[in-house]
């Protein structure tokens, strides 16, 4: 060992220098009162500590990623199940909301109008060859009569054409044979609304000299002996002047005839 150091004097020098620095470092304190040895030790240890910290974090990330991937399928299945459950719940709540809104609408009928109505459900629609007729589950037993008016909270639906004990056949206002006395606005021009076989209605017998604006609401006039006065039918979609004396007025009905589910039948007081 001595011989080795003698041959390599720089090793001896290095050892002596380290010895002196060590002696200094255990006596001298830095400005913040720490021993220089501790400060040096901390400075020397810091890179290792940082490296260890980074490595540890990296390892944790790798392990977490692995765990995440291994549980991904299970989690996916759980989330799909949860998604289905929530969708079902949402649909149920939406149906409930619609029902509540509908109930509220029908409840309002009795407060808006003086006549009495009974509620009935559409049990059959789109009959072959009778595209503008529906069957409802109310008949003679519920005091429904032929030509009873059928409405919804949105507006006029049509009238009863035939009655049995438990059901009735309703002719929709869109039928080409259907018609109802009507007026523009609650006290305005009077005419007759007729079905066209399509979705829109036609308001006839309004003179070409009258001023009719699109968007005006058309109500029943109560002059036909079937529909009570003041029930909304639709709003004016277009009013065109023709060569004749009457205008050609198209009415957009408020009732969505293709989506009818429940209706109210106007009945006489028992």
């Amino acid at each position, binding site marked *: 060992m001595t011989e080795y*150091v*003698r041959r390599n*004097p720089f090793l*001896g*020098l290095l050892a*002596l*220098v380290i*010895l*002196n*620095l*060590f*002696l*200094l*470092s255990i*006596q*001298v304190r*830095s*400005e913040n009162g720490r021993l*220089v040895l501790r*400060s040096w030790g901390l400075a020397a240890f810091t890179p290792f500590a940082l490296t260890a910290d980074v490595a540890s974090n990296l390892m944790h990330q790798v392990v977490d990623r692995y765990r995440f991937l291994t549980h991904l399928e299970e989690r996916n299945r759980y989330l799909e199940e949860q998604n289905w459950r929530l969708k079902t719940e949402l649909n149920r709540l939406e149906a409930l909301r619609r029902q509540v809104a509908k109930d509220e609408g029908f409840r309002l009928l009795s407060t808006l109008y003086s006549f009495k109505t009974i509620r009935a459900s559409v049990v059959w629609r789109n009959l072959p060859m009778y595209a503008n007729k529906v069957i409802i589950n109310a008949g003679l037993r519920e005091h429904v009569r032929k030509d009873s008016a059928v409405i919804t909270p949105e507006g006029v639906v049509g009238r009863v054409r035939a009655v049995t004990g438990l059901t009735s056949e309703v002719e929709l206002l869109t039928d080409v044979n259907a018609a109802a006395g009507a007026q523009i606005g609650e006290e305005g021009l009077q005419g007759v609304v007729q079905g066209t076989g399509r979705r829109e209605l036609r308001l006839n017998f309004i003179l070409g000299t009258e001023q009719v604006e699109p968007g005006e609401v058309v109500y029943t006039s109560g002059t036909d002996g079937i529909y009570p006065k003041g029930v909304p039918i639709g709003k004016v979609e277009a009013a065109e002047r023709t060569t004749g004396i009457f205008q050609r007025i198209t009415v957009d009905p408020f009732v969505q005839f293709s989506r009818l589910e429940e209706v109210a039948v106007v009945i006489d007081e028992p």
Partner: protein
Amino acid sequence: MKPTTSNDGVQRRIPPLEILVFLIVGLAVDLVQGALLPGYLRAEVLLVLVVYVGWSTSPLKGAVVGTIFGILEDYLVGIPIGLNGLSMTLIGFLSGYLSRWMSTELGPFRVLLFAGLALLDRAIILGTLYLLAQNVSPVRIDGLLLSAFLTGIIGEVFFGLYDKIRFPPKDFRRLH
């Protein structure tokens, strides 16, 4: 310049007892100087002795003697132990190496050599203090130069006297 083992081409052996005497004398002079003289008039006697040992023997021995002398000086003076120890270690080692590459036949050169090494010694100490993040009081260059010059003179005198006493020229006439 041709490498030699010492200034006159001969690697001398300095007995430990003589080194001990060097140490005692050096420390005594150092203490007396410290008590009586201002800093700029103090010669680095112990440094001279370390340089002499390193120059006359080997770099490693110079470093070892430098470490011992420096640590003892630190202890006696009351400064952090290792400050002079580190500088004298390096100076002792360096002087051992310089002796292989330089000749100190000329007196003025020896004065310059000791003065240069004394300045280097101060520089190492200041550098170490800076490294240790210590507050270093301002140093006067003229004081440093004067002290280094005095060290050079002392070194030259010591080198000359000691060599004359310890290794007198042989009188070959007696052989006849």
